[in-house]
């Protein structure tokens, strides 16, 4: 039956979540007991009669990364997708870069449209030392949970270049704010494509970018 598959392996966070929904005090249960609870919870959703025929087939229960699902204590009926999103970000957030994308963070530590940002990316997963760096003014931020991305614009050799980076990609090694933007009153600065003004005439920033690039190498 299903039980042979589940019990004996640690339940995934999803299973514990299902168990939590049925039994609010599951935090104190043992792994086996919560697995049994998960089994009960699952049986609401699965047709056990068809499963008995497939009991010999192994199925994979992924190893949980988080002992307990990342549910806040005040959430009585947590939204599963929100919890999964939160766990995915926590998994990808190795150097605390999620603090850049929190809307309510302190203005100094938050990434805003108009900031000058330096990003260092690995070119491929195979060689961690082969990196490319790009500096630019952040003209847009798309806050989409794990798919959060931002666009940096710079003028390189008299040609405007825009690069869109996925914030939680493992290939993005470093995101640093070189200079906070001032006087930008919009969330999306697409007008800078036609009317750059003095935004891209910052020669001091080239030096800052170069020093930021070499700082991590040392």
């Amino acid at each position, binding site marked *: 039956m299903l039980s042979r598959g589940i019990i004996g392996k640690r339940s995934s966070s999803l299973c514990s979540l299902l168990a939590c929904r049925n039994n609010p005090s599951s935090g104190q249960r043992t792994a086996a007991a919560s697995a049994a609870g998960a089994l009960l919870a699952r049986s609401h959703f699965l047709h056990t009669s068809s499963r008995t025929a497939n009991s010999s087939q192994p199925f994979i229960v992924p190893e949980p990364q988080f002992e307990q699902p990342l549910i806040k204590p005040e959430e009585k009926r947590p939204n599963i997708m929100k919890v999964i999103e939160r766990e995915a970000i926590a998994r990808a957030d190795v150097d605390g870069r999620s603090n850049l994308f929190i809307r309510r963070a302190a203005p100094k530590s938050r990434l805003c449209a108009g900031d000058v940002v330096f990003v260092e*990316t690995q070119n*491929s997963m195979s060689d961690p030392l082969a990196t490319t760096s*790009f500096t630019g003014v952040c003209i847009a931020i798309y806050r989409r949970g794990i798919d959060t*991305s931002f*666009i940096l614009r710079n003028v*390189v*050799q*008299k*040609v*405007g*270049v*825009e*690069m*869109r*980076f*996925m914030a939680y*990609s493992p*290939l993005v090694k470093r995101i640093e704010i070189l200079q906070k933007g001032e006087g930008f009153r919009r969330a999306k600065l697409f007008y800078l*494509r036609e009317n750059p003004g003095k935004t891209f005439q910052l020669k001091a920033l080239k030096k800052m970018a170069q020093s930021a690039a070499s700082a991590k190498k040392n």
Partner: protein
Amino acid sequence: MIQLKSRLNVIDNSGAIVAECIKVLRNAKWAEVGDEIVVSVKKARPISDKTAASQSAAKIRKGDVRRAVIVRTKKEIRRPDGRYVRFDDNACVLLNNQQQPLGSRILGLVSAELRFKNWVKVVSLAPRVV
């Protein structure tokens, strides 16, 4: 996304300034960075006496039909790691029939996509690759 009638800046020193795409050499409507296209030169620099006398320099006039490789597009290009790159204009480099650049220098930056599509000579001539 360059197609028939798209105008591109020519960024080598062959003498052409603006070229218009007349054929995408792929079984597709649009061409991206690293694709070869056939262009008609719409604007060219007047041929100097030095170029007229020289045997090896390419003599490009307005109305010439040549092949070209696209090096920059205004439409964003997706890189495999999820990055997107977009330039402010569409640009190309003229080629001869052996897929070698006609000019001897490239003036301006090119996209790194060319490296993956085996345009080695173009990438090596470019002053900056993004």
